[in-house]
Structures are given as structure tokens and as C-alpha cells.
């Protein structure tokens, strides 16, 4: 087909002509309309729906401040610590850029955790949005990697020993473990080689993947359409204009809605940046103002707060706790065999895997550290299965049985408790509590195929619940 360019009248404004020229060669207007301008979103979004665009804003803050930090930072074990202080003192506005970046890291996790909470509450991961969830999950993994790699760069004591502890976890893998952790570090201890490769991952590799995943997350979202607090599909109810009757174009309504949210967010963010950038030692840890020293192990090494729920699960896995895990595995297989109609072969496979795991947890077999790493990894990876674990007939918490709310509350408390205990120094009482919370954490997900279908569900409305402002 021959190239046809739409003809505009000779006296059309220059802007229109220019846009027409571009649109004939690149779907600029179409892209804007599909992704935002004429993207019809449910009109009943509430407070919980602000965190997606905030995450986007924080991503931009991190990239822009990161670009400026890299201009002055030195990824060299002998210079790194001093270069951060150089940024804080001698680079014009360096302190602001650095504090925005360090506060941004924590803000990113706060916003993303709230964004995920929203998905939990309203079943936003359910069919047909499984891929949105999986892309989002991959973004979460990237964020964790990004935060982990970035945290080594200031080259303080916590940077150094945190990286040492986490890389050593790979050493728990049987046979290949020690060589694997050596390969990751590039040296026998965390050193200049490690710093350089972490720098490379932090500023190039992970951000590239992250941006791609964010694009995929948004394209998938705008393809199937947004969920909403009622968990019903607005596309089931199309009006005469061909658009969902309960949908409104994102622009201008959600544009200005999000701008309002963003200004509130920036106010809180700035309050931290300007008045409490250390945030009581949680955003910038005190120990990290001491340069890395490979000969002095700090008495208490804790990862930054956003990793601690998962880290607590690692710490909770003692050899004693493995008996609980074994008992849990037996009970779980029995539950599957007795109550599900899965194919016989699958049941046998599950039983076989459980049996191998139970054997591996026997005293004298694989040690608790290895299983701690397995549960640590499992506690993150299990999130990916959520769309298939949840089988409740309704998506939104609003129309679930009331007792489901308590299940979510208990889960939420267990998660926060794990996080709290992870920043504390280990204690016998803390260990017990974190073990109870670890059981609740895994129980919540692994039993979801059963409990999420139980109880009396409330009728779901045909139209979204919306009160005009």
C-alpha cells in the first residue's frame, strides 16, 4: 500500500501540521490515547489507586537523581566512601540529590508495598490480569536487586557486611554454593571487584530490565483494563458511545487526580528529605557512616527495613523449626490427597517432592541454613503464584465473607511483625514469634486454594459503587 499522508487545510495551525506529519510516521496520538488520553478507567478508584502513579514518579526521581550521583560518585573501594561525602559537601546541591536518592529507595518500597496491598484487597491479580501481576512481581524482584546492589555503593560498614551476608547465602546451596558466591563476589571477600560489578548492575543492567518491565506492566494493564474496588469488570457494561458506562477517560480526570496525589506525596517525601533524611537510622543506617572494614564485623548486621520481613523468615529457620516444616509438609500433602481432585500423577509428584524435602531436612542431611535460604527465596517467589492460589468467586474484599478480612489482617500483622523483628537483634523470644509469623505467612498462601472459596459471599453489584463528589 502506498504511503498516504492525511491532508490538512493549508491554513491549519503549525502544531496540527507537525503532529499530522509525525502521526503519519509514528502512532504518537494513538499511543497517547490508548495508554492514557482515551484510556477508560473505572470512575470509582479510591485512595489505594494512587500508588501506581506514585511508583512511577519515584522511579523517575531515582533515575534522574541517580544520573547526577554517578557524575560524582567513584566506584572504587578506596574512593567510594569519600566520594559520597564529597557529594554531600563539595558538589553544589549534592546533599539534596543524595538525600532524594536515599529517601527515594525507601519511598519506592513503601509505595510498592501499598500498591501490592491494593492488589490483595481488590483481587487485582485475578483473571484476566495475571500477566499484569507477574510483570509487577518481576518489577518487585528487580527493585530488590536494585536496592541490594545500590546499598553496597556508599561502602559503609552496613553496605559491606550486608552484601557479605547476602552473598554468603548463595554459599548454602549444596555442591556449587561456595563457588557460586565466589563467582558473584569476584573475590574471596566483598572487595573492589564486587563494588565494581554491583555498580554496573545498579546503574545499567537492572534499570534497563526495570524500565522494560514497567512498560510491559502498563501495556498489559491498558490492554485488559483496570480493576476497581468492587472487583467487577466495567467492560461488561458498555454504553452507546462504545465506552464502559462506569469508565471515564484517564485524561483529564485521573491526570489531575494523580497530580493532586503526587503533590501530597511530594510534601511527605520532602518532609523526610529536608527534616529527617536518616529517618531514625532506617533510611540511612548509622553504622553506614563508618567506612567499610573487612576486619571489623559489626555486632548486629541487619538488612535495610524493606527486606526484613523475608530476612526474618531466613533467621526463623533453625534446625528446630525444620521439624515444624516437616510436619507442615506431611499435613499439606495429606490435605492435597484427601480434598482435591488433582490428577493422580500430579498428586504422586507433589508427594515425592515433599518426601525428598522432608528427607533433606532430617538431622545430618542438608543444614538449616540451606533451608533458611529456600524458605527466604520461597517467601518472595510464592507471591508470583497468587493469581492461581486465590479461587474465591469474587475479586474484591468488599464482597467476601467478613472473616476473610480477619485472615488478611492476621497476615498483615504477621508480615509487619516479621519486618519489625528483622531489624532487631536476634533474641530467643523474637525467634519464636518470627517462627509463628513465618507459619502464618506461608499458611496464608498455601492454604489459600481452600480458605479463599470458603464462607458465604455477598452479591456483587452490576454497576460500580460510586458517589458523585
Amino acid at each position, binding site marked *: 500500500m502506498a504511503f498516504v499522508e492525511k491532508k490538512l487545510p493549508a491554513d491549519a495551525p503549525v502544531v496540527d501540521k507537525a503532529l499530522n506529519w509525525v502521526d503519519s510516521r509514528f502512532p504518537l496520538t494513538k499511543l497517547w490515547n490508548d495508554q492514557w488520553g482515551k484510556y477508560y478507567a473505572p470512575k470509582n478508584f479510591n485512595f489505594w489507586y494512587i500508588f501506581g502513579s506514585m511508583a512511577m514518579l519515584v522511579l523517575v526521581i531515582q533515575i534522574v537523581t541517580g544520573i547526577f550521583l554517578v557524575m560524582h560518585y567513584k566506584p572504587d573501594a578506596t574512593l567510594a566512601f569519600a566520594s559520597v561525602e564529597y557529594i554531600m559537601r563539595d558538589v553544589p546541591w549534592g546533599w539534596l540529590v543524595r538525600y532524594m536518592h536515599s529517601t527515594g529507595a525507601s519511598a519506592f518500597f513503601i509505595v510498592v508495598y501499598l500498591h501490592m496491598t491494593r492488589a490483595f484487597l481488590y483481587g487485582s491479580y485475578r483473571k484476566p490480569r495475571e500477566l499484569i501481576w507477574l510483570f509487577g512481581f518481576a518489577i518487585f524482584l528487580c527493585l530488590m536487586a536494585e536496592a541490594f546492589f545500590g546499598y553496597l555503593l556508599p561502602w559503609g560498614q552496613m553496605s559491606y557486611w550486608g552484601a557479605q551476608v547476602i552473598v554468603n547465602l548463595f554459599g548454602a546451596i549444596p555442591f556449587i554454593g561456595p563457588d557460586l558466591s565466589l563467582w558473584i563476589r569476584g573475590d574471596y571477600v566483598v572487595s573492589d571487584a564486587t563494588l565494581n560489578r554491583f555498580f554496573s548492575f545498579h546503574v545499567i543492567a537492572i534499570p534497563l530490565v526495570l524500565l522494560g518491565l514497567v512498560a510491559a506492566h502498563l501495556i498489559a494493564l491498558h490492554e485488559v483494563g483496570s480493576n476497581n474496588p468492587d472487583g467487577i469488570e466495567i467492560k461488561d457494561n458498555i454504553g452507546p458511545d462504545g465506552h464502559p458506562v462506569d469508565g471515564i477517560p484517564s485524561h483529564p480526570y485521573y491526570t489531575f*487526580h494523580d497530580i493532586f496525589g503526587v503533590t501530597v506525596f*511530594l510534601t511527605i517525601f520532602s518532609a523526610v528529605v529536608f527534616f529527617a533524611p536518616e529517618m531514625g537510622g532506617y533510611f540511612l543506617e548509622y553504622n553506614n557512616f563508618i567506612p567499610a572494614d573487612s576486619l571489623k564485623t559489626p555486632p548486629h548486621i541487619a538488612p535495610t527495613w524493606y527486606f526484613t520481613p523475608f530476612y526474618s523468615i531466613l533467621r526463623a529457620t533453625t534446625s528446630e523449626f525444620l521439624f515444624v516444616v516437616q510436619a507442615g509438609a506431611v499435613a499439606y500433602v495429606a490435605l492435597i490427597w484427601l480434598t482435591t481432585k488433582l490428577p493422580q500423577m500430579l498428586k504422586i509428584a507433589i508427594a515425592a517432592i515433599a518426601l525428598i524435602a522432608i528427607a533433606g531436612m532430617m538431622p545430618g542431611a542438608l543444614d538449616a541454613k540451606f533451608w533458611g535460604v529456600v524458605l527466604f527465596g520461597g517467601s518472595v517467589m510464592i507471591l508470583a503464584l497468587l493469581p492461581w492460589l486465590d479461587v474465591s468467586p469474587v475479586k474484591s474484599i468488599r464482597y467476601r465473607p467478613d472473616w476473610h478480612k480477619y485472615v488478611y489482617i492476621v497476615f498483615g500483622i504477621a508480615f509487619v511483625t516479621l519486618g519489625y523483628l528483622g531489624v*532487631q537483634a536476634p*533474641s530467643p523470644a523474637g525467634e519464636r514469634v518470627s517462627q509463628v*509469623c513465618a507459619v502464618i505467612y506461608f499458611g496464608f498462601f498455601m492454604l489459600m486454594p481452600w480458605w479463599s472459596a470458603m464462607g458465604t459471599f455477598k452479591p456483587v453489584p452490576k454497576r460500580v459503587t460510586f458517589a458523585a463528589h
Partner: protein
Amino acid sequence: MKLLKKLIAVLAFAPAMVLASGGTFPLDRAPDRSTDMAALQNGAKLFVNYCLNCHSASAMRYNRLKDIGLTDDQIKQNLLFTGEKVGDLMKNTMSAKDAKDWFGAVPPDLSVIARAKASGDGTGADWIYTYLRTYYKDDSRPSGWNNKVFPSVGMPHVLWELQGVQEEKLVEEKDPHDASKKVHKFVGFDLVKPGTMNKIEYDNAVGDLVAYMQWMGEPAQSTRKRLGVWVLLFLATLATLAWRLNASYWKEVK
């Protein structure tokens, strides 16, 4: 729900358990002189005279002291002794090997020490303020000095001429865990040899020194807070406008 109650009960006690387990020396609160230029200048003088001989502050430039009201000339005449330039970093000339031989450890760089020493027990300034006031004579130590906040410290009491020499005042008490034994409980200090300052003057001087070190940990801190007020005012205004703008658009959504 029972489980939930138990969990909450355990959590409520958790901080108490942490507190009970700590046997650290309680920290005194350092006076806040972060915006008191005279105090900061006096602190800078003490710092350069007493600390910089062995320690460095290698992130700190001498001419940054202009931020606390000194001029280039004042810095040159009063604070530079060995031919440094006013734009130089506060480095010291002692070699790491000598330091190790003399004190058993290399004296740490002090640029951000006031930030590093913060903990749940108090700010970094509190720690240094208590530390510099709790040196006591201890003949069992190689240097002849020991410290309540930093037991078995390598550094001798550099400010002893100012403070004088103090000893631990101990009273014998029954061991609460074992009635047959006695323990020595620390109740305070005895000044055995007065220094050039009395207690109030010394505490005041250390207060100035600590204020300076706290300022040096982040010279931009007062700029940051001053600017922060304007940023928050601007954003609060913007948020209010954005709120009303948003409301005017959403009025038409039925």
C-alpha cells in the same frame, strides 16, 4: 483472634526485653548548639587544637568553616599550623603504622563520627558528649586511662589538662544474683586532680566541641532545614491548588 492477642501481647513486651538486655552506660544529652555560631567556632578551635593531631576529618575543608562565621584570614591565622592551604581537607600527618604502634588502633576519621555514633540510646552528639566526660584513671590500661562509654578505649584522655584527673567512685554492694558475693557499683567520679577548668566550664567546652562535630558531620544541615520550610510551604500550597483543581474536574463525573 486469640493468636492475634497473644502476638500483640508479645510485641508489647518486645521493646522492654530489648531494654532490659542492654548493659550500656546511660548517655547524657548533649546541649543543642547547632545554630550557635560562637559555640561552633569555639568547638572548631578545640577540635583543631586537640583532635586533629591524631585524627583526621578528611571530608572537611578548612574553608567550609566560613559557614560558621569565620573568615579565610581567621582560619589561616588561628587554625592552620603546618602550612596547609585554606581550601585543604582536614588531614593529619600521623602515619597509620605509627598510630597502630602507639595506640593499638588507627584513630578513626572524624568527619561523620557524630552521625556514625547515633543509636537507639541517643544521638551521636550525646554519645561523644558523654564519652569525652567519662574518662577516668585506670592503671591497668596501657595508656593509664579508661572510659565508661567506650571500655578499654585506645585513646588517652586528651582533654585531661582541661578536665583534670578523675577516678571511678565505687561502692560495694551485694550481688543481686548471688548473696555470697559482692559487686562494685559505679556511682560517679572523684576528681583527684583538678584541671584548668571547673566542671561547668569543662562540660560547656565539651558541649561546644560536640556541637562543632555534629555540625561537621553534615555542614549543609541548617541550609537543609531552612530550605525545607520553604519547600514544604510551596508544596502545601501546590497540593491545595491541585486538590481544588481536581475537585473542579470531578464535579462533572456523575
